[in-house]
């Protein structure tokens, strides 16, 4: 092959480039460039028509100048002129200039498109190639509009040259990526799939990329590609290393094509046809076997190419997650790589194993490598490799190895790179909490975290440890003792002072019996840190002091002295000053009883999802996690009719201010405490506590306004039987029980009521019931654990309904879990009129049954009695949760105990339509998570059920089997009853 001499063909260009290279300074370079630009401009403007060669040379110089980073504002027209040259070299420079300096000048685009059109029609493969490359490089919408219809034809035409086919396939791919709406699917798609069989491996390589992208969006249409890809792959992996000639790379047959085929297969579930499936399994086994064979070459190129295919095969095995044998083999192979001398392989093995750790088939196998991974954490030189080791330890952690992994992560933290410290802190905090059998271990771990990496311990972490200590009385004494000891260190992190202050303020009494930690010693210890701390911490400590006043009357005088000192009472910081003033006053004027009530121990926090997890999610995927906290905060503000509650001031405690310092002060304001009024303050207290754990929630520790059990008084429920149990005389097929004359009897459920009920599970509005006389419509909205339902009663006749009495009926069980409130409606409904009834709903705890709406009225001379089930179902209290694949499976794995999972396999009752199914899952209330399930045919969802007392995270997965017309629905939540109910509700929908 002839070597290409410097700038051959264009001497002027080579000279110019040399000149530029010889410039000693930036100024000289600019001067030389300006000279050249002036020269070119005059040539382009000159009277003498330039020949093709000169034009090419000057356009190429302009391009070079542009690539040096200078602006070019002319020459576009000359470049476009080059496109219509008949000489390849001139055309090539023209196209290159266009591709690099795309200009959206519409006039030019028209000319460019015209030239491209001519070249595409030229039947000259070289020109067609240039034109296709230009479209692929620019990929603009205008080009898509002009050529998206033409390129598929070129791609599948019988007489198209192979190299043109390659370019056409990828050109089409580019247009499909930028303007999918402009690329029409059609007859060509099936012919494109058959390119997988093409003789020319270059064509197959290009076509596989195209098909993979198309198949991701249109899996059904490209389903036949699976068997073709498997047989192509099989032919490649079983070929001798020389069979594929120029497609063999360092003794590896067609490695890039193999990788692409394996990626194409990852768009689909395991093949259903047993023959295809068997053949694929053989392929994958062959790839795994080859990894064990001695290398055919010592060159790194050989092993890299071989391992590229191996890693992709392992990805496919993990994607299918169905062959335990292959999964374990993959894990063993990766295990070997963990100790390989090549850093690349160690890195990739750690990364790949992370995904294996979440498969139930290989989780145990992954765990056997724990020592190697820990060693990697200690010895790897490349921080990105250590990072993967941390990720893998986190992924392989379970109850059996949590203590070891947490200990190793903690010790790594001492020397960890700053860039990954915060993430490790979060991971340690999560693992310590999740796998704590013994909460003393948890407390020790978090205190260690603060000691080792205090600066990286975010609020979420230390809020959480306090939440847990407050909620678990078995650990409170230990926590108090431990923080007390930790605070003895001469220099301790401010976060430790915060945790210590809070815990001693609550539970210091538990260790006060020991003379070594008497009240005064505790106080002096905390106060010795006071002056070194920031304002928020000092504010917190002041609250601790007032708590001490209540806990330890013997130090009251000491504390009052401190509060009274100028440095507190006249502190420049208004927050500190106010606290000092108010606490001092409180300690002086309040009776012991009042003190004890106001400063009582904090009530337990509601159990909810760890806010740390949310934080980690946020760190890991800023784009994938919606800001739940923010959304919730907004919503709860809405529910309460505004973010600012009515100010209430009493006994010198300015609640507005207390709220402002929420998260630091935790003074308990009891609803039962007369001086502090009712309602608003209790609400305040809940906001305070809510904020303390990093979230605001609408939740009260005490009933704000005692909610009467579902409207016994309002609806006169006492007079009606609790449930429509006793069947009155059957009314056969009649919709309305016209025979019954007893006003107190509740009609059996109207026929069809069940069906109607099911229809409302995934929607909130519609007609619930209708007969010749009456129509009942519903409109409802739900937010978190609250909801409101509007019931519309329409009189379809022209006669008045009299004594119109709708009644809500809940069983005793349901009454405790679901609170309903409504007002009676006007007993007269005029003919043709509609009356409305509002039901306020609160979900107190999870529930299974549905309330019954009974309506009794007189129409003409007859008594009418109708009962329908009211569609208030548990799923209405769903809040959707978006999460990334890794989070989903992580949690899925966490909820793996048999009580947490409920599964139902059932026959499809409706046509199995993907879009309808998606709409139903969204209507059900959970988030529909795209790109999470490895099998694109499956649906997964996630959400949180809000009740007054708790929040229950729910994951769901729906696997359709088109062939059998069946579904498998799996629900995983932390509560069995919830899993069961949601599964039952959703199963009825498909």
């Amino acid at each position, binding site marked *: 092959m002839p070597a290409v001499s410097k700038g051959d063909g264009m001497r002027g260009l080579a000279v110019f480039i040399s000149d530029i290279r010889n410039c000693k300074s930036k100024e000289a370079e600019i001067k030389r460039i300006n000279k050249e630009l002036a020269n070119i401009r005059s040539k382009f403007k000159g009277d003498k028509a330039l020949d093709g060669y000169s034009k090419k040379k000057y356009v190429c110089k302009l391009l070079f100048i542009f690539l040096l980073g200078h602006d070019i504002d002319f020459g576009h027209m000359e470049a476009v002129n080059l496109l219509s040259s008949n000489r390849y070299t001139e055309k090539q420079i023209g196209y290159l200039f266009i591709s690099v300096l795309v200009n959206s000048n519409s006039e030019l685009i028209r000319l460019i498109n015209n030239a491209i059109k001519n070249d595409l029609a030229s039947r000259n493969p070289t020109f067609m190639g240039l034109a296709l490359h230009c479209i692929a490089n620019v990929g603009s919408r205008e080009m898509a509009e002009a050529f998206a219809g033409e390129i598929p034809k070129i791609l599948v035409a019988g007489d198209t040259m192979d190299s043109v086919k390659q370019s056409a396939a990828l050109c089409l791919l580019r247009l499909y990526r930028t303007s999918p709406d402009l690329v029409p699917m059609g007859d060509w798609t099936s012919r494109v799939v058959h390119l997988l069989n093409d003789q020319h491996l270059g064509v197959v*390589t290009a076509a596989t990329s195209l098909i993979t992208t198309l198949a991701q969006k249109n899996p059904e249409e490209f389903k036949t590609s699976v068997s073709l890809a498997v047989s192509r792959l099989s032919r490649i992996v079983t070929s001798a290393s020389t069979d594929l000639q120029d497609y063999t790379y360092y003794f590896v047959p067609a490695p890039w094509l193999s990788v692409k085929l394996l990626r194409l297969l990852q768009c689909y579930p395991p093949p259903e046809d047993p023959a295809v499936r068997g053949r694929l399994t053989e392929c994958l086994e062959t790839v795994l076997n080859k990894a064990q064979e001695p290398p055919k070459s010592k060159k790194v190129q050989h092993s890299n190419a071989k391992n590229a295919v191996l890693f992709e095969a392992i990805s496919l095995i993990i994607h299918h997650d169905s062959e335990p044998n292959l999964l374990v083999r993959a894990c063993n192979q990766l295990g070997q790589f963990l100790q390989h001398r090549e850093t690349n392989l160690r890195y990739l093995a750690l990364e790949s194993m992370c995904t294996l750790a979440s498969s139930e088939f290989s989780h145990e196998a992954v765990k056997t490598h724990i020592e190697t991974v820990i060693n990697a954490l200690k010895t790897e030189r490349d921080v990105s490799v250590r990072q993967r080791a941390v990720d893998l330890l986190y992924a392989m952690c379970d109850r059996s190895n949590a203590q070891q992994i947490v200990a190793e992560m903690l010790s790594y933290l001492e020397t960890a790179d700053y860039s990954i410290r915060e993430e490790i802190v979060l991971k340690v905090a999560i693992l310590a909490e999740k796998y704590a059998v013994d909460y003393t271990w948890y407390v020790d771990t978090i205190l260690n975290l603060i000691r080792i990496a205090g600066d990286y311990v975010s609020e979420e972490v230390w809020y959480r440890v306090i939440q847990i200590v407050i909620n678990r009385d078995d650990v409170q004494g230990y926590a108090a003792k431990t923080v007390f000891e930790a605070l003895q260190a001469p220099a301790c992190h401010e976060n430790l002072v915060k945790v210590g202050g809070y815990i001693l303020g609550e539970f210091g009494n538990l260790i006060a019996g020991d003379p070594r930690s008497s009240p005064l010693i505790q106080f002096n210890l905390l106060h010795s840190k006071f002056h070194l701390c920031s304002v928020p911490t000092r504010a917190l400590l002041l609250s601790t002091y007032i708590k001490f006043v209540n806990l330890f009357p013997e130090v009251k005088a000491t504390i009052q002295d401190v509060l009274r000192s100028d440095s507190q009472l006249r502190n420049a910081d208004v927050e500190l000053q106010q606290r000092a003033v108010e606490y001092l006053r409180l300690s002086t004027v309040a009776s012991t009883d009042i003190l004890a009530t106001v400063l009582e121990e904090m009530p337990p926090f509601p159990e909810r999802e760890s806010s740390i997890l949310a934080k980690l999610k946020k760190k890991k995927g*800023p784009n994938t996690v919606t800001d739940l906290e923010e959304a919730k905060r907004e919503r709860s503000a809405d529910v309460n009719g505004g973010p600012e509650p009515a100010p209430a001031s009493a006994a010198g405690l300015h609640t507005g201010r207390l709220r402002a310092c929420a998260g630091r002060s935790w003074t308990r304001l009891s609803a039962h405490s007369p001086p502090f009024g009712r309602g608003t303050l209790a609400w305040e207290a809940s906001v305070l506590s809510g904020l303390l754990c990093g979230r605001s929630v609408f939740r009260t520790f005490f009933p704000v306004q005692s909610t009467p059990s579902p409207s016994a008084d309002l609806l006169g429920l006492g007079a009606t039987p609790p449930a429509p149990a006793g069947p009155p005389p059957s009314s056969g097929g009649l919709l309305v029980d016209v025979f019954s004359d007893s006003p107190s009897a509740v009609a059996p459920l109207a026929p069809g009521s069940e069906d109607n009920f099911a229809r409302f599970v995934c929607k909130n509005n519609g007609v619930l019931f209708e007969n010749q006389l009456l129509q009942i419509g519903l409109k409802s909205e739900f937010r978190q654990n609250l909801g409101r339902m509007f019931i519309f009663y329409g009189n379809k006749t022209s006669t008045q309904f009299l004594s119109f009495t709708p009644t809500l009926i809940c069983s005793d069980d349901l009454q405790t879990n679901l609170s309903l409130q409504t007002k009676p409606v006007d007993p007269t409904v005029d003919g043709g009129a509609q009356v409305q009834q509002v039901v306020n709903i609160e979900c107190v705890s999870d529930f299974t049954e549905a309330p019954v709406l009974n309506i009794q009225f007189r129409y003409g001379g007859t008594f009418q009695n109708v009962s329908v089930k009211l569609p208030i179902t548990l799923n209405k209290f769903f809040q959707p949760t978006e999460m990334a694949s890794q989070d989903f499976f992580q949690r899925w794995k966490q909820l793996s105990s048999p009580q947490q999972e409920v599964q139902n396999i059932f026959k499809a009752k409706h046509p199995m339509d993907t879009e309808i199914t998606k709409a139903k899952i969204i209507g059900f209330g959970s988030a529909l998570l795209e790109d999470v399930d490895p099998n694109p045919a499956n649906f997964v969802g996630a959400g949180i059920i809000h009740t007054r007392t708790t929040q229950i995270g729910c994951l769901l997965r729906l696997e359709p089997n088109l062939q059998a017309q069946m579904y498998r629905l799996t629900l995983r939540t932390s509560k069995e009853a919830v899993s069961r109910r949601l599964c039952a509700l959703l199963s009825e929908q498909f």
Partner: protein
Amino acid sequence: LREQELPRSRGTGAAGVRTGVAMIRFILIQNRAGKTRLAKWYMQFDDDEKQKLIEEVHAVVTVRDAKHTNFVEFRNFKIIYRRYAGLYFCICVDVNDNNLAYLEAIHNFVEVLNEYFHNVCELDLVFNFYKVYTVVDEMFLAGEIRETSQTKVLKQLLMLQSL
């Protein structure tokens, strides 16, 4: 790259989901001093953004030593790179893409350049920059690997050379 809303996944999750986009975002050839010898973009960037990317890539790649991996996380993507004498060949791809396949794609490309320019050196790329684009387009197109056979690519280049 900022405007791309691609989730940052690291393969730490289960099931190695492969449904996201996976393609080459750009190819850069830079020397140690940070001078760009080739920049090929497969997605839209404005000129300032391109300049910023070029500088960032240079900053992350040149600090790594030979014992490090040939992969480095980069914004929401990753860079697969290989150093040949004073030149860094960098390919930016999506995080779920196959590292080793691109690492060897770089080498395959370099072998073609070496053959085409007879012992390629940095200066060949400078003086023949417009030909380098042709070589790239033969081997990579639309962010995908187009042709991997060195024989076929060189035959085609030779044919074009003769026109």
